[in-house]
């Protein structure tokens, strides 16, 4: 039980010198890793290319108070899912796109932009998603301080 999961955990710890307690095996087929945003690119590439996590299930955005979080849920064909969590400061919430490798990430990353106000570097130009074109600037519905009646009090500007 959990042999393969523990092996993956060990590989991540050793290769990137990550603190062992930041990577946890929750149960069969579920690994959670809390990694510094600066390391994200190399850990992500390693997990996809070398550890075989070739499926991007989705990206979850989180409002964590002073920081915004993103969890990349990637999976192996055999069912093991690795959940890579990073945090970036709310006043400079910049992450790098993974859409070059996973084209489907385009929609997931646009959700982070529209709903949480993240800035995704390298995201190709395209239609916004999922909010309407006339949605007021600076209104991020999934931020914790945002309430659904906020929108009624905001002046609407086109193509904000």
């Amino acid at each position: 039980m959990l042999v393969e999961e523990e092996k993956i955990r060990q590989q991540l710890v050793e290769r990137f010198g990550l603190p062992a307690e930041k990577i946890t095996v929750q149960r069969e087929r579920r690994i959670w890793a809390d990694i510094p945003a600066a390391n994200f690119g190399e850990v992500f590439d390693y997990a996809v290319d070398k550890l075989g996590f070739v499926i991007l299930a989705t990206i979850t955005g989180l409002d964590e108070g002073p920081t915004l979080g993103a969890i990349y849920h990637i999976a192996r064909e055999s069912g093991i899912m690795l959940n890579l969590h990073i945090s970036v400061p709310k006043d400079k919430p910049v992450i790098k796109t993974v859409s070059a490798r996973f084209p489907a990430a385009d929609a997931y990353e646009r959700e982070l932009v529209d709903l949480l106000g993240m800035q995704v570097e390298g995201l190709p130009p395209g239609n916004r998603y999922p909010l309407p074109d006339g949605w007021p600037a600076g209104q991020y519905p999934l931020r914790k301080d945002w309430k659904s009646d906020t929108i009624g009090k905001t002046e609407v500007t086109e193509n904000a």
Partner: protein
Amino acid sequence: MPERDVKLTIGPQHPMLKEPESFLLTLRGEKITDMTVRLGYNHRGIEKACEQRTYIQDMYLVERVCGICSHSHSTCFIQAVEEIAGLQVPKRGLYIRTLVAELERVHSHLLWLGVAGHEIGFDTLLMYSWRDRELVMDILAIISGNRVNYGMNTIGGVKRDITPDQIPQILTAIDTLEERTKYYIQVGTEEITLRERLSGVGKLSKEDAMRLGAAGPTMRASGVNRDTRRDDPYGAYGELTFDVITDDHCDVYGRTLVRLGELMQSYKLIRQIVRSLPAGPIAVKAPRKIPAGQAISRYEAPRGEDVHYVKANGSDKPERVKLRAPTLANVQVVAHMLKDGYLADTPIVIAAIDPCFSCTDRAIATTNLDDGRKDRMVWPALRTYSIEWYSKQGINFTELNRKLRTMRESN
């Protein structure tokens, strides 16, 4: 004269579409050279709404993400909640959940078969398959009391048991449906018109299916052998035997064969479940407050994989709920499939991923036709507007509402 590119917008409201979404096609003659998609017209703010409601309320809300795979979404959500709370769902509960899941797949795939028939002008197939679909709808109604939005789930198990007299009813319906599906497979493989119309349409190679992250039958019809039920088993799937259906046609024809094959597997699963239904309780009691933690839940819905992330903060309301429906994964895939195809194939290519544009939002954007001014209506304003509008038509619910309120207060 050289041919010029023509831009054609389809949607958000268009007779071809069953749900609001917008496609901007670039055409050279009859050929599509490029396409962009605009989604979000169905965004209802469900993820935000989940944070403001209790877990039990969320279960009902999430069940309404989709009108067809309602059980898929509610199961996917509560699996995550149960994992965080450390609840062990009794085996009988898991089996009943899985039974409803497979009945739902049968209803969804037969619905798709009819829609596909309709999109290619083969309305006899629509009439036949939707007539047969009534059998599974009746079974769902017998089990749950509802044709859709069954409300079978509860955190910790299921709400309704399967009674001994329901089992022969289920088996009889499944026998008939299996016979009918065999006939559709025969139609699919022998009927030249159908085969010729669907073959080579909406091509998607195996490499592209994997690269673009296609989901569900769309992916499996391009030869990608993945199915969450087998690869990351949940419910009772770990104890049941079934085959993952794949096909190498890589086109709409292949997607049809995969769904027909999956119907046969669903009948096999349903028989196994009702014949080996374990005895015992159907649910365990769940706490109102869920301890802090997080979980990710995966579920093979009829259209592909549902992925739900839940973060709990120790209260009775979740900190964050993230939902991903399979259509979002298949959108890029549609754009790719339409490219270099013919305009006339657009309806069936889009229909072939079995799209379901279910997302989030409660705000309604309006444009004033007189001065073109953009405005936004929030829910209470929209409600007031509708009450006033109906009053002008002579329909007034004020008195009825007052009576209802009095009745509620006196209780």
